[in-house]
């Protein structure tokens, strides 16, 4: 009896709390229902982007305002809406409720939970569409995001507040790369938001299991709009992810937002625009396809301390077809972002994983977003790799080359081998610096190419067992002084001795 009493009391409280003042509502009637879009008559006083509620319980938002009708994108099952249905305006623009309880959850772009748990508590409502922070609010990007992947942290460093595009064909390791970055943020205090647009549900399920396994879900939010979700949700997903990121940004935290992927986002927007009979441009994309992505990516920033001091880093992913980076959407996003990481199928199939083409990849923030320790080793690394690339064509001649060329080719091959990395095994800063230091100082030159992997494993074992304090010191100071180099030299030489008895 007591439980029923409690429920009755709750219901009474709800009835009492209900607003007594009747409100004037804006209503309209559905005239047409197209694939994902409903055309309504009435609603004479709605604004662009306002949320409309159909009387069947489904909501939508205004995307088209013409003289006699209003076009509303349906955020749900549009098949349940028929002509003649009534709808009313909520008076609110598109927004998502956020709080710290959102961490670890899987939600849809409207904030509804998808992980079979209760709805999270609401602290604030953040608008999905927002003008990016102005020039005055920003400062220079000079703190790194440690991805844990050697080739990125050394050669294409990403800073907090930067936008770095990850571009490649299907199956080249784009998602694996970002998942490894998320896993590596465990001790960095960076909040990660993974936005899924138009992907397979099975892929998301595997991804969430992987994040749970590495205990990365505690500081991650997954915003999901998979391929079978309504196209309007796929259109809104990146903006919802950015809005959640801005909630944490306003608290002075560092946020990493990943958009996987923006190609499917462009397809969703193209579908909506074509249904609304907007003029089709190149490749049938609407005229504002650039603005679609530029207004999203411009919201990534590093705020000055006066305005909170947080940062929002964006890692958009774009899938190319047959490596064509000069297609419409890739070129658009390349011109918006502060650099790109090219992943190539040829390199992937040849066993170089992560399949990053170091020559074509660039980070426009560059070494200003690197720690001192990394800067010291990456300068020589870049030189070795550049010389190797130049002479790569000559490697076919084998023994007919002179000593100098052979040395450079050998060094380049070893360095390339050391930059390979297994998936889901991110390195800490100290481990990266140590391994690269060993490579550029010639300790690998005398080994066979096939022995480099084993040497690396033994070296890392040595570091974690006997060099623990050394690793902690480098991770803390982020600098490689003379005595650190001496200690590192001792550790490397010990590994070399144990390797070649």
């Amino acid at each position, binding site marked *: 009896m007591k439980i029923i009493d409690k429920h009755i009391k*709750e*219901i009474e409280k*709800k*009835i009492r709390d*209900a607003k007594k003042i*009747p*409100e*004037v*509502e*804006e*209503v*309209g009637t559905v005239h047409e229902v197209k694939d994902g879009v409903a055309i309504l008559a*009435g*609603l*004479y*006083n709605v604004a662009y982007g306002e949320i409309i509620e159909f009387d069947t*319980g489904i909501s939508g938002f205004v995307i088209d305002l013409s003289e006699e009708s209003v076009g509303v994108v349906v955020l749900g099952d549009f098949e349940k809406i028929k002509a003649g249905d009534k709808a*009313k305006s909520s008076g609110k623009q598109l927004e998502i409720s956020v709080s710290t309880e959102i961490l670890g959850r899987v939600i849809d772009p409207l904030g509804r939970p998808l992980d079979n748990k209760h709805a999270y508590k609401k602290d604030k409502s953040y608008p999905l569409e927002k003008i990016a922070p102005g020039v005055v609010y920003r400062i220079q990007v000079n703190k790194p995001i440690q991805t844990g992947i050697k080739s990125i942290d050394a050669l294409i460093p990403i800073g907090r507040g930067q936008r770095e595009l990850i571009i490649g064909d299907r199956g080249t390791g784009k998602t694996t790369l970002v998942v490894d970055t998320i896993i590596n943020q465990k001790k960095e205090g960076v909040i990660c938001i993974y936005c899924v647009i138009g992907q397979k549900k099975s892929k998301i399920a595997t991804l969430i299991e992987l994040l749970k396994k590495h205990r990365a879900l505690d500081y991650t939010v997954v915003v999901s709009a998979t391929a079978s979700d309504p196209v309007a949700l796929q259109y809104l997903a990146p903006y919802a992810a950015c809005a959640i990121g801005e909630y944490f940004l306003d608290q002075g935290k560092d946020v990493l937002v990943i958009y996987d992927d923006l190609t499917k986002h462009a397809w969703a927007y193209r579908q909506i625009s074509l249904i609304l009979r907007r003029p089709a441009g190149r490749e049938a994309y609407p005229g504002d396809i650039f603005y679609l992505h530029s207004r999203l990516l411009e919201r990534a920033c590093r705020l000055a301390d006066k305005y909170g001091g947080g940062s929002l880093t964006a890692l958009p992913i774009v899938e190319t077809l047959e490596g064509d980076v000069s297609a419409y959407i890739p070129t658009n996003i390349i011109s918006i972002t502060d650099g790109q990481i090219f992943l190539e199928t040829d390199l992937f199939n040849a066993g170089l994983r992560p399949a990053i083409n170091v020559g074509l990849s660039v980070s426009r923030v560059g070494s200003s977003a690197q720690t001192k320790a990394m800067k010291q080793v990456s300068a020589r690394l870049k030189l070795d790799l550049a010389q190797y690339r130049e002479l790569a064509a000559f490697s076919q001649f084998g023994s007919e080359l002179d000593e100098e060329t052979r040395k450079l080719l050998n060094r380049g091959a070893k360095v390339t081998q050391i930059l390979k990395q297994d998936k889901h095994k991110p390195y800490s800063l100290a481990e990266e610096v140590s391994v690269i230091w060993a490579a550029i100082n010639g300790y690998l030159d005398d080994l066979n190419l096939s022995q480099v992997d084993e040497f690396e494993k033994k070296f890392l074992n040595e570091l974690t067992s006997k060099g623990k304090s050394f690793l902690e010191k480098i991770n803390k100071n982020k600098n490689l002084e003379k005595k650190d180099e001496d200690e590192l030299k001792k550790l490397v030489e010990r590994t070399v001795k144990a390797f070649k008895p």
Partner: protein
Amino acid sequence: MSIMKINTVTKQEIKLFLKKKLEDEKNKVFVYSPYSLSKEEINQIFEIIPFLKVRPVENIIDRQILAGIKVQYGSKILDLSLNARLKNLASRLHENN
């Protein structure tokens, strides 16, 4: 089969006529009630909303409302019917569970 051509002048006149009819509809105030209201009752409503006094009024009978009235002007509607309040309550209880 012959194709009928509409005189352009006639076409324009029809367009203007229809537009005026639409304007008239938009300008009307619709009062939905479960039973037909007398003039005094309608006047009582408009005492509270003086803005609507000068507009033409049409009283539509809708038993679905159960009790109360709905006042509609253009696309704005003031829903004071019992039906709407019950629906509101039902949806709020539903989302709680």
